[in-house]
């Protein structure tokens, strides 16, 4: 039997190769994702390890709010005087204070230097080899207030050298510094894309912290001392709100923070890999069904000469396993290449990953092969079962065997699966729980795929009607061919159905999200000009002095500064906005439900109506809150407003804000103007020196908000295109088989006068009808899923449900065009059939 299996594979090389593409693409995705994220993991872990490996203890402020990610928690600074106290603790050999924050170098061409979204670090430069991996490679450490040490990668990339002047943007604005030295981390010239500026301690404190305050203190103990005892001794001398943790703890926190970021990234990529494989599974199922159908006689002959059912079953599955294994192997290799490519891409962006390069774990190989082979074999189970049912007598006749599910059972099975899927999906969306949503969607797709043969004949026949009218006899026969085997029609279209459904979901989601964003800004902003940071990062800030400058420009009639921060309400950390109340009526539209906006001036807390309802708050109610700087306090609810896109859920006055936050960070300035172009020019001129800030008209602002949604969408569409591509293989496969099966028929048509172009028209019509069938079901299904998804996102600001009909129609047309493309090869083959040979074929 083994030889029969192998011969079978060789005989259908082409069709199996096409099937293999589906597996190859999916496995490439999986392997690539693993290799890339493992590599990034190892890289970051090594870097973080090299930074913290020498530190035994770290003294730092207690995290202000309970958080999962200790590494990025907001902490109060600690007093510099603690340094002397800690140094006196017996067993402490070295204790160095660090100040760190965010500053940015300005490139010679005036742009801000940032490697993608990587941090732009500012620190006090302390090259004590016992606590820091930083090494001066050229020049000297900073000693004067305007000295700075630059990381080697940045210096190299922008051709900075020692003694040159460089501008640096900090919370205080732009200042000019002199490069005193170039530094690097251990042997790496960069910390995975992070830029670094090192200052003297006072300068670092001035730029990024309060005077005489430190971010933390790093401690190295004397060799041979009892670590735990030293730790306890340090803890005893620390004031309230300051803690000591071991270097290992810090390392673990940093590592887990990186893990969280990377796992989000890898999960997203793996989801697309699974989608590709899911669609691929339909293609594989279709191909093996076709192969089994085509080999009915051969299988019957095997049975007639004595092969057992089990042998036939195994032979089909073995074929699937071999194809799956080969394809997975290729996919694995391509995945590594893809990861390499991405690494090259990162290098292009100036992010050099250290040597040691690709991490290729056993898990990558095992999962890739297991998933690839598993999907192939499982998809071939159904066809294999059908192969078993071929009776030996079929070897004699030439009747077509159709040993599938009886129609009734099929309908019931499909409906049950569909209903289960709806239940899973609904509960998954309600929770929300992504894996449940995925499971539900998969069950719905399978259910519809099982049901599809029951309605493929009438639907395809309706779709085909225009072909009969426009394309004449070629179109008519194409249409008839597309419905002669309803199950094959449904199987072929199933893969495309899934792809198109996902595309429709994304189209509806993005249209709804865009409309919701635009709509919410329309009802929130009255200002003509908006000054904000170019980075989408919440931490981006406007220079505190700038709002005054802007407000005094001629033509500016009103200005409002919006600040951002965090505070604790009840047990959770929430985002909070603060606004200056002067001129508010001309810049931001606030609809009060109850209470007054004026109460902001008296230190009241305002909440939006959604939040008020959820937390059962009314005007006058006391609320227990906690601020980082001042600790717990009770605020009174001064008013409740309708949800507003600019000011969010919680709002306080600017005076109150300034007294409760260490460094006021204006997030945006909203300006109402006389509308002249001169004032816009003045504002742009005033903002120009501050790099990292942008001036937008209200319309531009809205556009940039929706552009964010669309940027992500572009990537998602690109990834879904992969799924659609795999789906098209299904159509090519089916058509190639149809051409083979109908060789005599095509020969007859040619004999009685069908011209070659009419043959092509016939095959193409069939392809387009198949594609249209899959696309229609897919788009309808996707529209339903999309509307359900959007409905479940109401609480996240997607309040308007929009079904972009024009876009969906465009996708439909695109699917038909792709179907036409898929027909190219089969159509050519059919048109080139030799008439005489075709007639003589049995």
């Amino acid at each position, binding site marked *: 039997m083994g030889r029969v299996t192998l011969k079978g594979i060789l005989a259908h090389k082409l069709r199996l190769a096409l099937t293999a593409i589906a597996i190859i693409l999916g496995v490439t995705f999986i392997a690539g994702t693993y290799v890339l994220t493992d590599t990034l993991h190892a890289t970051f872990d090594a870097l973080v390890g090299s930074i913290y490996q020498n530190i035994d203890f770290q003294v730092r402020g207690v995290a202000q709010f309970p958080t999962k990610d200790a590494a990025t928690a907001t902490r109060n600074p600690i007093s510099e005087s603690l340094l002397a106290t800690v140094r006196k603790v017996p067993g402490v050999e070295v204790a160095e204070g660090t100040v760190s924050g965010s500053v940015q170098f300005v490139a010679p061409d005036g742009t801000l230097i940032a490697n993608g979204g990587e941090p732009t670090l500012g620190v006090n430069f302390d090259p004590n080899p016992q606590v820091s991996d930083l090494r001066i490679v050229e020049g000297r450490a900073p000693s004067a207030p305007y000295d700075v040490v630059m990381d080697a990668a940045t210096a190299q990339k922008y051709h900075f050298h020692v003694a040159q002047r460089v501008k640096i943007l900090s919370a205080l604005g732009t200042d000019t510094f002199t490069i005193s030295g170039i530094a690097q981390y251990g042997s790496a010239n960069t910390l995975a894309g992070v830029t670094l500026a090192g200052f003297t301690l006072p300068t670092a404190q001035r730029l990024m912290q309060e005077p005489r305050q430190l971010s933390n203190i790093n401690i190295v103990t004397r060799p041979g001392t009892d670590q735990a005892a030293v730790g306890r001794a340090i803890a005893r001398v620390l004031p309230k709100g300051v803690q000591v943790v071991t270097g290992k703890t810090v390392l673990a926190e940093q590592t887990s923070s990186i893990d969280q970021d990377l796992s989000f990234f890898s999960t997203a990529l793996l989801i697309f890999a699974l989608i590709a494989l899911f669609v691929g599974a339909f293609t594989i199922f279709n191909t093996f069904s076709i192969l089994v159908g085509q080999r009915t006689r051969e299988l019957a002959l095997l049975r007639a000469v004595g092969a057992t059912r089990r042998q036939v079953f195994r032979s089909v599955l073995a074929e699937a396993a071999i194809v799956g294994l080969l394809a997975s192997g290729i996919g694995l290799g391509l995945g590594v290449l893809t990861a390499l490519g991405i690494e090259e891409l990162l290098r292009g962006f100036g992010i050099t990953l250290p040597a040691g390069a690709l991490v290729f774990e056993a898990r990558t190989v095992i999962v890739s092969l297991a998933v690839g082979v598993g999907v192939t074999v499982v998809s071939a189970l159904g066809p294999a079962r059908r192969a078993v049912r071929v009776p030996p007598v079929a070897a004699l006749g030439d009747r077509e065997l159709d040993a599938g599910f009886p129609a009734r059972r099929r309908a019931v099975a499909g409906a049950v699966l569909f209903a289960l899927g709806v239940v899973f999906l609904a509960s998954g969306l309600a929770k929300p729980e992504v894996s449940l949503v995925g499971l539900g969607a998969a069950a719905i797709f399978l259910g519809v795929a099982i049901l599809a043969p029951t309605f493929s004949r009438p639907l395809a026949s309706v779709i085909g009607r225009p072909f009969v009218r426009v394309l*004449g*006899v070629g179109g*008519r*026969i194409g249409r*008839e*061919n597309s419905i*002669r085997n309803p199950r094959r029609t449904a199987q072929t279209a199933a893969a495309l159905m899934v792809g198109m459904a996902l595309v429709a979901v994304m189209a509806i989601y993005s249209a709804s999200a865009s409309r919701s964003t635009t709509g919410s800004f329309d009802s929130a902003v009255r200002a003509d000009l908006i000054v904000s940071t170019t980075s989408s990062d919440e931490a981006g800030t406007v220079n505190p002095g700038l709002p005054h400058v802007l407000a005094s420009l001629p033509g500016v009639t009103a200005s409002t500064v919006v600040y951002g921060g965090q505070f604790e309400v009840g047990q959770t950390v929430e985002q909070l906005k603060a606004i200056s109340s002067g001129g508010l009526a001309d810049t931001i539209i606030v609809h009060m439900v109850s209470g007054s906006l004026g109460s902001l001036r008296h230190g009241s807390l305002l909440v939006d109506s959604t939040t008020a309802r959820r937390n059962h708050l009314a005007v006058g109610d006391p609320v227990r809150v906690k601020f980082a700087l001042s600790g717990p306090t009770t605020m009174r609810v001064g008013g409740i407003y309708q949800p507003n896109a600019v000011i969010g859920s919680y709002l306080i006055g600017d005076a109150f804000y300034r007294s409760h936050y260490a460094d006021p960070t204006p997030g945006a300035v909203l300006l109402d103007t006389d509308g002249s172009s001169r004032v816009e020019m003045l504002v742009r001129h005033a903002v120009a020196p501050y790099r990292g800030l942008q001036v937008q008209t209200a319309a531009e602002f809205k556009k940039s908000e929706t552009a964010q949604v669309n940027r992500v969408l572009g990537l998602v569409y690109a990834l879904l295109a992969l799924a659609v591509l795999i789906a098209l293989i299904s159509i090519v496969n089916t058509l190639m088989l149809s051409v083979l099966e109908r060789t*005599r*028929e095509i020969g*007859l*048509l*040619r*004999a*009685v*006068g*069908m*011209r*070659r172009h*009419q043959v092509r028209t016939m095959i193409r019509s069939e392809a387009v009808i198949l594609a249209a069938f899959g696309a229609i079901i897919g788009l309808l299904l996707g529209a339903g899923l999309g509307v359900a998804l959007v409905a479940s996102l109401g609480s996240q600001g997607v309040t308007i449900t929009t079904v972009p009909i024009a876009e969906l129609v465009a996708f439909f047309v695109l699917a038909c065009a792709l179907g036409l493309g898929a027909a190219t090869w089969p159509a050519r083959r059919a048109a080139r059939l030799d*008439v*005489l040979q075709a*007639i003589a074929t049995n």
Partner: protein
Amino acid sequence: MTATTTNVVEAARAIDLVKAYGAGQAQVHALAGVSVRFEASRFTAVMGPSGSGKSTLMHCMAGLDRPTSGQSLIEGTDLTSLGDGRLTELRRDRIGFVFQSFNLVPTLTAAENITLPVDLAGRKVDKSWFDHLVTQLGLANRLGHRPSEMSGGQQQRVACARALINRPALVFADEPTGNLDSNASAELLTFLQHSVAEMGQSIVMVTHDPHGASFADRVVFLSDGRVVDELEAPTADSVLERMRTLGS
């Protein structure tokens, strides 16, 4: 310019047709220089033992296959000079086919199968001619049926109607009764005979059945790729007699 000056009009003619397969020593001649005329409004049978080249002759004369050398003419047009497009048009408009089996497109109804050549040409069906054929062949109540819902005899009659729908210069029938029982065979052959006599149709039928050949006006005998004999107004017995002498 007419192809002939005799009072019998010529429907098709082969001039020194050669069809060779393979090359050099291994070369086999399916047709070794066949020259034959098929007159219009006559029913000609082509007979010969298997391997005699009778099917190859039909294929070459009907524009389904290209001869190695020689000419084949339909109504004076040399098929060997035509490209695939013109050849296809000629088959569609001037030639009718009835094969032994698999004559019909399974997805089309009887009526659609009959009008297929007209539809392929994008022309209008001559309704009265269609009705006439359908009535003659007794297919009036079968028009909406698909091939799978018809008997073998009915299917062959649909094929006959399709072959005649364009009033072709010549109908080629390749063992048209090969898969039929004797009743259905007789019915079909009678119709073919009738269409020649009543409608002036020209028919060439390849067969190996002496009884079938007896329905023809003339029989041409082939052996080893050559025309070896002819017989006018054949009977089953006279045909059998000739076959026997050929076989020996």
